């Protein structure tokens, strides 16, 4: 222990334990100093003075508000973006702002192939991702997620694809045709902006999934020999795509289709080309947190809310913890697409948000305790 009895006020003010007590009110240090003061009452004056010195130095030097810091960090994040623009996908983020998501249903569609180790039968459909993409009517952008974390892709209509590791998605830069068509290899969670005039199709392996405005997951790794579709809420049509049929030429009236409603699932084995519908028994089997859980916040600190969303969607929030330390959220969020969730949160706490490629920046003036 330092020779505290010989300490002058300024020595206390520079002592790390003393600072932890005075500045951060660390319990362990507080305990120590309270005991020490009892044992050395004659030092109370010096300790008092040291505390004032610290307090006053902080006041004298505190020359910038948290709001200004937030603005400067915001500015920095923009400079970093400009410094290195990479993929064309990036541009889509800004256009997203204009769009109001109206998705009212959520469907979760998991095509899960469990029979790992079993190879795809040779007479199985050769509906690989590459074949499907070749037949696409529009030029496609592609996003490949080689990382170990989900990666968010924003489409031109505001729909999002949360691409899981080792998966790839193909999609047009703009949806110009009568349909919105995307292609998938692997697994992804989709949140589709509602637009009845332009149905949304996902082509994955030998399945076609059609939605009118909802969100769902598709898992279709090419090595999987059995596929599963699970719906949580909303309505989704699933078709088995005849072998010889290319993407986009599917005749829905003739194709064997199954309509799935909440808590139903369909198991599909390409070998038997049969869709079997049943009830979902264990939605927890689904891999992604957002598929199985709704978000219930009850006076939850805003930092915790953001970190929950960060974890689920693989996005990151930039916000000022200091300014927003008194912001709490009480809300239940479930079916809304990500950006609608963020919009709701921001309106609740009187904040605003902007997006850049990798993160969502929250501007807030704080909340009153």
């Amino acid at each position, binding site marked *: 222990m330092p020779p505290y009895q010989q300490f*002058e006020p300024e020595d206390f003010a520079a002592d790390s334990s003393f600072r932890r007590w005075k500045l951060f009110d660390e319990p362990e240090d507080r305990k120590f100093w309270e005991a020490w003061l009892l044992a050395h009452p004659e030092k109370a004056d010096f300790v008092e*003075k040291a505390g004032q010195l610290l307090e006053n130095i902080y006041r*004298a*030097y505190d020359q*910038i508000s948290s709001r200004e810091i937030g603005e400067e960090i915001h500015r920095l994040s923009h400079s970093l973006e400009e410094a290195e623009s990479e993929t064309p996908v990036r541009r889509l983020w800004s256009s997203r702002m204009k769009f109001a998501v109206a998705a009212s249903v959520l469907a979760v569609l998991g095509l899960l192939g469990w029979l790992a180790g079993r190879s795809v039968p040779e007479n199985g459909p050769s509906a690989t991702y590459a074949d499907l993409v070749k037949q696409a009517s529009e030029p496609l952008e592609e996003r490949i997620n080689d990382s170990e974390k989900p990666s968010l892709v924003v489409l031109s209509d505001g729909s999002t694809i949360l691409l899981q590791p080792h998966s790839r998605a193909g999609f047009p830069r703009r949806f110009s045709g009568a349909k919105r068509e995307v292609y998938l290899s692997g697994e992804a969670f989709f949140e589709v902006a509602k637009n009845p005039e332009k149905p949304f199709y996902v082509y994955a392996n030998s399945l076609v999934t059609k939605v009118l405005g909802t969100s769902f997951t598709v898992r279709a790794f090419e090595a999987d020999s059995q596929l599963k579709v699970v719906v949580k809420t909303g309505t989704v049509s699933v078709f088995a795509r005849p072998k010889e049929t290319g993407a986009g030429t599917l005749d829905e009236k003739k194709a064997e289709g199954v309509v799935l409603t909440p808590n139903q699932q369909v198991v599909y084995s390409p070998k038997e080309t049969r869709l079997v519908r049943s009830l979902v028994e264990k939605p927890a089997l689904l891999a992604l947190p957002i598929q199985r859980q709704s978000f219930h916040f009850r006076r939850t600190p805003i930092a915790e809310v953001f970190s929950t969303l960060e974890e689920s969607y693989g996005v990151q929030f930039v916000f000022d913890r200091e300014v927003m330390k008194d912001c709490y959220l009480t809300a239940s969020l479930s079916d809304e697409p990500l950006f609608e969730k963020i919009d709701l949160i921001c309106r609740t706490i009187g904040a605003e948000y902007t997006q850049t490629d990798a993160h969502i920046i929250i501007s807030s003036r704080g909340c009153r305790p």
Partner: protein
Amino acid sequence: MNREQRISDENETLLELWRQARAGDKAAYCRLADSQYRTLFNYATNFTADREVIKDALQDLFIHIWERRQSITIQYVSIYFLRALRNQLLQEFRRSKRTAWSVNVQDAGYLTDFRTVETDIEQGEAVSEHRRKLHQAIGGLPKRQQEVVFLKFYEGLENEQIAEVMHINRQSVANLLFKAISTLRGSLLFSLYTLLFLLYFFVGNRPD
């Protein structure tokens, strides 16, 4: 006072952010910048009173470090940034003859016109006035003594770390501190009156 932020500023946490930033994670880098911003800004007020100059200097600093991140090794995050900022400010100062630089940082000149700028509008003029007086007590010190006071008592650095940031030896740090403390004793900085005044003012003027 920003205590919550400072608690989370453990070096390990910061180093983890730095590792993510080095791997290309811009959001992590922004958070790191956010965690250092207040300290760096306040440190820079030891060199110039022009807030816009400080903000631009910090933007340049952060972008420069981001661009060179692959070749940078950091052991102690806040010291690295303080030191980098200091070097940059000195370089800029030598390059330009801008009037913004109110002090010659190389000479131990006196800083007589240390103006504080209102940052929090809601705190009103009386507190600003009070703050100005506090700052004057420090501002009356020779330049390098001010800097040492900041690093020692605001940032809580050890003398050895201060020496590292300022590129001087430990004994010089001790000497500067001794002189500064001798001058500051008996000033407002040590007085009980200031605390009572502030308490009264803050409690009395709470918006709701």
